[in-house]
């Protein structure tokens, strides 16, 4: 099963404060451990929300773009991992090893197509199919 581990924003991540050398070393070692254990599928850190934007949709489907930064720091995402493990307990034990001091990390299970049940019609699947084929072709270039 797959989990997304979501690292929440802090004042520092929002200000774009660079991690110290020690923090970088610790995080590097942690990432290496995840990779060497064969559990890390992906992981990225995000730039501050000042470099991002939100797109808000109204009920008619119209949209408005709102440029960052955004105020509610703790609700922002500063980075994520995608981990593949055999149980919820395992992902939590991996997260507990992360070299954070302060802050919060949210752990969510990734849904598979089966979890969408009947809402996933054959047409939707076909559409997703085209998207994935394109994406795979891009990865493979």
């Amino acid at each position, binding site marked *: 099963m797959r989990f997304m581990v979501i690292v929440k924003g802090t004042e520092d991540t929002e200000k774009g404060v660079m991690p110290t050398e020690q923090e970088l070393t610790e995080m590097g070692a942690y990432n290496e451990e995840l990779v*060497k254990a064969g559990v890390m599928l992906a992981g990225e850190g995000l730039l501050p929300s000042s470099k991002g934007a939100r797109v808000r949709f109204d009920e008619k489907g119209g949209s408005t773009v709102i440029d960052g930064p955004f105020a509610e720091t703790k609700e922002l995402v500063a980075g994520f991992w995608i981990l593949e493990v*055999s*149980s919820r*307990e*395992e992902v939590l*034990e991996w997260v507990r090893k992360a070299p954070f001091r302060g802050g919060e990390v949210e752990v969510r299970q990734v849904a598979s*197509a089966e979890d969408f049940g009947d809402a996933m019609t054959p047409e939707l699947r076909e559409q*997703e199919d085209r998207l*994935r*084929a394109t994406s795979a072709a891009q990865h493979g270039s």
Partner: protein
Amino acid sequence: MTGPAPTASATHRVVDAVWRMESAKLIGALTRVTGDVGLAEELAQDALLAALEQWPESGIPAKPGAWLMATAKHRAIDTFRRAERLERKTAELGRELAVRESTEPDWAAALDEVVEDDVLRLVFISCHPVLSREARVALTLRLIGGLATDEIARAFLVPEPTVAQRIVRAKRTLTAAHVPFEVPTGADFTARVSSVLEVLYLIFNEGYAATSGEHWTRPALCQEALRLGRIVAELLPGESEVHGLVALLELQASRLAARTGPDGEPVLLGDQDRGRWDHVLIGRGLAALRRAERSGGALGPYALQAAIAACHARAGSVEQTDWPRIAALYDALAQLAPSPVVELNRAVAVSRAYGAAAGLELADALTDVPALRGYHLLPSVRGDLLEQLGRSAEAGAEFRRAASLTRNERERELLLDRAAACGPAVPGPREP
């Protein structure tokens, strides 16, 4: 001794998870220090039992891996001292001088040391050619994967005592053969790596295409092989074929969900809903293939198979697939690792690239190959090609023959359905 017992208790589930994460490192370090993989595993298991006893009371320690290591270390030192006392007593009885210096090695310090190669050495020991294939598979899942004996038994559909015996014997064989705990060098290295890759491939295939039983796939076993493959690829980053195998496994695994229909029936590649392919694994598989290609030299058999799987992964449909490239890759594979099964696959690719008649010609050349006599995929492929050429009666006969040869019940149903679609069986002369 068994691994963590399945239990409803939350703490026990955490212990299971920690064991899965830490056991290979633990057993690796203990083997390095004690020089005996059997003893190392016993010590690690003792630490595991201690955790199962103590953690429900004391709570999960802040650093569970370090806790297990510290506990195992104490047991290791106790064991050594006991053995030494016994040895001294024997020496005194034999009126030999017991003046030898205490030879207790500094195990405590040695166990505190983190040695990068511990897990790699453990992989090489588990996959040692002195062991039978079954033993290598069981020992690898046990020592590197951290699986309990009953989990391995269930995955391979064999009784638990059989697996337990296999593991006990394997450890004895390793001790008797004085197999060193080391990363092989020189000419030996390539052969030993091949043995490791073969074990991982066997584990994956056992899960991917169950040769018997009702279940078409056993995904957990595939995932385990994939995890082990990723671990080994990190340990041997310069080995092209290791990346080739990982690429192959990632790409094959990306199709796991699509290979089974709603009622558990097998769905063949051409009929699979490609939207159900796992694009995360496809991306990883293609990246691993690039690493294999970049490692230099000609691609090995695993990387070539991965390159073939990559052609499928990149294609939006059977029609859009680059069949001429696949046919060429099979040609390269046939030269590198000639086998009738590869020839049969080449026949399929050629039929797609250049027409059913061209493919059938290659497949027909295989009907006299003794190795394929009981192989259900040969009549299955011939049936498919004959059907495309409009030779329905012959196609039906081939599908029925294939159905009588397969050991997989689901696959048999599928083949009989295809035979039925070709019309009723025609009585008449059969080919020899």
